[in-house]
């Protein structure tokens, strides 16, 4: 089965489209166009494969493509922006699963054909292993983010032993598949990969899960690249490798933004309780106030900085917050949003959520840009965020978030927290800032409280 020259050229064009797409996605101006170019490349590649190769069972295949297209498109259209991370995890998982299945089917075929080459078998084995790890791992990340299971690290006695055994068994099966090529061994390898994928993600704490999604994304890319060699399709090799390399770098960038090492994220909780927070509400005294008091604080401040967090999005309060900011701007207050790199559930997530509420891009300030301004700020309004302003990241080496850069809200003259309760943040640790004398707490559902605050500021 040789690919005709025109099809090779067509694949080359598609590969260039993918590169342009990734390039475009790294600048806000060109991002959407870049993504569309990538989609065009994908369509071109799909059309090409139907004409370039001899495809039997055309009707069932087209039906299967249609079914997948409908499921994917409907899922993507209906998802809430707050649930974006878990949807990406799910899409990544099915991609890894597809790669693993393709490799298993191909293994069956090359065994039947006789005398398979060692490189081909190694690539097949690699795809099965990485594809199944990515699939199972992604499903667990989905369950964690959707809160269908606990988002805390899950470990049980003997975990490192089980983990190590699964890892060794998987690697042994993967290596053994090269000299002893049988379909059964391939299926055993797939099952071991699934087990390993689950064990890989279980001990990861909720706040670190998005970084693991990025890692699994890179895994799926590499699995696709390896299957490209097996199927002798250069586009799969190039596209898979691009994603593998870009995904690996992205994982490192994200981990750096959170001040965490990848090793710590993956294995930290296995070494003891260091990444496990207490997760309990404190009964230490705090100063709380009503919406009317906070409205006066805000109304007569000259400089206000808003620190939005995931809780804001969960309460669907972005629009109310935007209205409040608009009223303050009309009163002549200088207001900005301070966006922590990992605000929301994954890097850049908060930008998407605020964009949905049509908050102007210019009001969003990245951490490095806004941090020097907290000293001159009258009021910092923290809405649904917690860990990203927790000074423990700088002061307490034993804290799980130690080393993560934070927004220096503690340097402002006044800090107001909008909180539902005293429950700790996603990292499960107490926030010292809540007990500072300059801090005021305003309890209640974010949307509800912001509406009251809005009314009170308007009435000033």
């Amino acid at each position, binding site marked *: 089965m040789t690919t005709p020259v025109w099809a090779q050229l067509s694949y080359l064009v598609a590969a260039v489209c993918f*590169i342009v797409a990734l390039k475009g996605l790294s600048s806000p101006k060109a991002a959407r166009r870049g993504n569309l170019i990538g989609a065009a490349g994908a369509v071109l590649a799909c059309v090409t*494969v139907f004409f370039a190769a001899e495809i039997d069972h055309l009707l069932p295949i087209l039906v299967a493509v249609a079914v997948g297209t409908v499921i994917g*498109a409907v899922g993507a259209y209906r998802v809430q922006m707050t649930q974006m991370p878990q949807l990406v995890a799910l899409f990544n998982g099915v991609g890894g699963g597809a790669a693993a299945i393709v490799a298993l089917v191909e293994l069956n075929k090359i065994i039947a054909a006789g005398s398979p080459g060692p490189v081909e078998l190694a690539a097949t084995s690699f795809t099965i292993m990485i594809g199944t790890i990515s699939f199972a791992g992604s499903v667990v990340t989905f369950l964690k983010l959707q809160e269908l299971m606990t988002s805390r690290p899950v470990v049980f006695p003997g975990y490192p032993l089980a983990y190590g055994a699964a890892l060794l068994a998987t690697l042994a099966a993967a290596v053994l598949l090269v000299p002893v090529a049988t379909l059964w061994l391939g299926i055993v390898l797939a099952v071991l990969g699934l087990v390993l994928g689950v064990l890989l993600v279980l001990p990861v704490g909720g706040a670190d899960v998005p970084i693991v999604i990025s890692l699994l994304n890179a895994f*799926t890319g590499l699995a696709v690249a390896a299957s490209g060699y097996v199927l002798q399709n250069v586009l799969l090799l190039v596209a898979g490798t691009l994603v593998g390399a870009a995904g690996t770098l*992205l994982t490192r960038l994200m981990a750096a933004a959170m001040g965490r090492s990848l090793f710590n994220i993956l294995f930290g909780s296995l070494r003891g309780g260091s990444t496990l927070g207490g997760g309990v509400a404190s009964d230490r005294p705090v100063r709380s106030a009503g919406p009317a008091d906070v409205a006066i604080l805000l109304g007569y401040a000259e400089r206000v900085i808003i620190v939005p967090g995931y809780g804001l999005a969960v309460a669907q309060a972005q629009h109310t917050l935007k209205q409040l900011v608009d009223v303050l701007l009309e009163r002549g207050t200088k207001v*900005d949003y301070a966006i922590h790199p990992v605000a929301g559930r994954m*890097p850049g997530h908060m930008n998407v959520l605020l964009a949905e509420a049509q908050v102007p*891009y210019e009001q969003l300030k990245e951490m490095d840009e806004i941090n020097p301004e907290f000293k001159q700020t009258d009021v910092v309004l923290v809405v649904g965020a917690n860990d990203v302003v927790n000074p423990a990241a700088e002061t307490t080496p034993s804290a799980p978030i130690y080393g993560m850069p934070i927004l220096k809200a503690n340097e402002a003259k006044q800090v107001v927290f909008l909180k539902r309760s005293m429950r700790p943040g996603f990292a499960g640790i107490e926030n010292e800032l809540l007990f500072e004398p300059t801090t005021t707490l305003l309890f209640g559902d974010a949307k509800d409280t912001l509406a009251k605050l809005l009314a009170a500021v308007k009435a000033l």
Partner: protein
Amino acid sequence: MSEPLVWLTVFILAIFVGNEVIAKVSSTLHTPLMSGANAIHGVILLGAVLVAGSADTTPVLVVALLAVVLASINMVGGFVVTDRMLQMFSGRRRIAKVDQRPGLPGGDTRELPR
């Protein structure tokens, strides 16, 4: 150059391209970038179509068709969800421009950062 070496060359060069194209991305775009890269590895659909198209027994065909469904979910869903995210980014910039023309009283009148 022998054939496996050609593949190895393409592989190594693609690693460098993959690293270079996203080296300077701002954290604002990490989420769409992850989602976009996710969509791109949906090209495994080609592989799924190829193995389904050469399936010679019914069980193999059924399994391969499952891969086709999963891969199309990955590819189509990935591109659509990325577009939905980015649509908001561009929508926000348009509205920002409209907001600036009348000049908000006492509001943010600084130059655009980029």
